[in-house]
């Protein structure tokens, strides 16, 4: 590898863009579709091409390389085009659909949970549905102190209603590096995979991204920071919150281990169990609301499997059990915060 490429850094959206571009070059059956994924559809003759590129700009520039037959702007018809992706996947393509925000999942939930997820099973393994659903999620968190966010219909996390479904794989990248690798893994997977992309990772996600294509395996969590006193476990932006909390705990002499889940379903239980066997404490940090959440699911799995290793009750730090509020002051306390993680650990350390 050349010296210049070894140190190349990318931010979140461009790394996903590179993953899509490289997989589209590798396999002519990979197509992308969704609302405004290029933008200004059909207006090339007026000089308008590629007007937007989706909320993450992850599809920008693809139409100029691959053309409108493989980069397909859709009408506002989520159920129709996600369903079309299911049919396309059954008949030879590898579609990557963008559902602009996870809040829109209700518009196409049937096609995801009843069709894409179950087709392989319902047909006795005789058909495969290799498709990817990319969708943006998340609140801004506690970085701002005035004004408003995007509120209850454009800020949710909602991955628990996807991870709940047998047959559906759900991945949540946290950095530019694993965003590229997980996106490529999702495209190459022979079943349906949902990729949840946090809207407000910003510079936290930026980092070294190799230019060549690579896979971050689905179903494998990563220990991003080793520690011996407590395990903090998060996904997406919550992983960065866990690292911030671990930094603060280190000043008090507490060595927190941080696990980045990366895949919510199928969950890498063993990495979590193995960590808990060493640290004897677990705090799960989850940006989704608490009822029937990943946080409580992980707590239950730990209680069932490694209870004897625990020195303190498992703690969960989740979003508030409310819709996402608009006002920034409310949004900031709706969203999990570092101080809540610190408080949970202090309670555990007693």
């Amino acid at each position: 590898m050349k010296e210049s490429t070894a140190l190349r850094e990318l931010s979140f959206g461009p790394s996903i863009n590179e993953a899509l571009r490289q997989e589209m070059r590798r396999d002519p059956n990979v197509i992308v579709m969704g609302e405004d994924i290029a933008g200004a559809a059909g207006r090339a003759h007026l000089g308008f091409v590629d007007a937007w590129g989706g909320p993450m700009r992850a599809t920008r520039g693809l139409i100029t390389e691959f053309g409108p037959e493989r980069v397909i702007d859709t009408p506002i018809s989520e159920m129709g085009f996600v369903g079309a992706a299911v049919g396309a996947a059954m008949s030879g393509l590898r579609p990557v659909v963008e559902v602009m925000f996870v809040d829109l999942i209700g518009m196409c939930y049937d096609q995801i949970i009843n069709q894409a997820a179950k087709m392989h099973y319902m047909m006795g393994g005789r058909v495969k549905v290799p498709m990817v659903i990319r969708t943006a999620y998340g609140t801004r968190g506690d970085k701002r102190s005035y004004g408003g966010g995007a509120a209850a219909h454009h800020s949710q996390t909602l991955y628990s209603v996807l991870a709940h479904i047998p047959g559906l794989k759900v991945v949540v990248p946290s950095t530019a590096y694993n965003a590229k690798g997980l996106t490529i893994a999702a495209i190459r997977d022979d079943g349906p995979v949902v990729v949840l992309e946090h809207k407000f990772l910003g510079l936290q996600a930026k980092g070294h991204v190799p230019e060549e294509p690579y896979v971050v395996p689905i179903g494998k969590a990563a220990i991003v920071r080793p520690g011996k006193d407590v395990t903090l476990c998060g996904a997406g932006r919550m992983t960065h919150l866990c690292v911030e909390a671990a930094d603060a705990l280190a000043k008090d002499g507490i060595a927190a281990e941080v696990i980045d889940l990366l895949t919510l379903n199928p969950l890498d239980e063993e990495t979590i169990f193995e960590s808990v066997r060493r640290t004897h404490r677990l705090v799960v940090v989850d940006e989704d609301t608490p009822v029937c959440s990943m946080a409580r699911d992980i707590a239950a799995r730990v209680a069932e499997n490694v209870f004897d290793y625990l020195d303190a009750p498992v703690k969960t730090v989740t979003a508030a059990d409310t819709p996402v509020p608009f006002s920034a002051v409310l949004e900031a306390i709706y969203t999990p915060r570092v101080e809540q993680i610190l408080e949970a650990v202090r309670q555990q350390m007693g």
Partner: protein
Amino acid sequence: MIVSKATPGAAAEVGAPNAREPVQQCLWLYERMSLIRQFEERLKWLVETGAPVGPVHFYIGQEAVAVGVCAALEETDWVASTHRGHGHCIAKGVEVAPMMAELFGKLSGTNRGKGGSMHITDITKHILGVNPINGAGVAHAVGAALSAKVRKTKQVAVAFFGEGSAGVGTVHECMNMAAIWKLPLVFVCENNGYAQTTPVEYACAVGKIADRAAAYGMPGVTVDGQDVFAVLRAASDAVERARSGAGPSLVECMTYRYFGHHQSDDTTRYRPAEEEKAAKGRDCLKGFRDRMASEGPLTLAQLDAVDQKNKLRMDEAVEFAKSGPLPEAADLHTDVYVPAEKSPS
């Protein structure tokens, strides 16, 4: 994506669906309509004598629609079906023995006992699934048509849906998308008059479902769904238009289901007896036989021989279903995910 696993059951004996030679084509049309009728009648008898086959939606009465449409298709053309899907499967060439085994929940079934009547299918016959979520399969047909266009395979896709599903938002989204992208797709509305118990005149503000085609910038026709030749003509025109790249069409076939929405539905609670009697008087199989008797090219003796052969085939299918193995407990957990070793990386 089709997984290359052989479907269990007897070898294909489908004949020539789109044969241009009239005798061969008429034989195929009658053989398939007769087989669907016999499959459903045998199934109805099994249901009534207590066979545990789960909920089933009989296709009896509508045979000419599935057969007329599929007669216009090539083997590699796609169809997406509905909850009332046995007829579409048989018309597209699925073997009746593994179909019956599926209804018995057997490992030897088309779906290895994982699907049942409402998901019965054989992807190797290019069926995107029988689907009991109204309108859902229509989107899959759009996807298959898109796939054909992107991969330049010249395949056509057919979306079967009922007049009830014509009220589903997905169907409208799909008609619009298929039209703006000029997809090689044929929308086939089987208007059997009733969405469970709800009459079409209550649920649809315009007189004909086909009238809606104009709103999506595609041709729409309404044909007599009890006349397999009328269905075949309309379907052939639409398929030709689709394959030529001119875009989708809507073909509405006026038909009638002879029995309830499913086996537990009592039609006397919502359909006048005179209406049922009149509709059954226009039976597609009887109409076909009358036409052959007066115009040929087949004789009634030839048609009787087809019926007899299908009866034996159904005897074998029921025996295959009854004697097949049940799934093992371990099968519960198979095929939830595609195993990693099968995924390229």
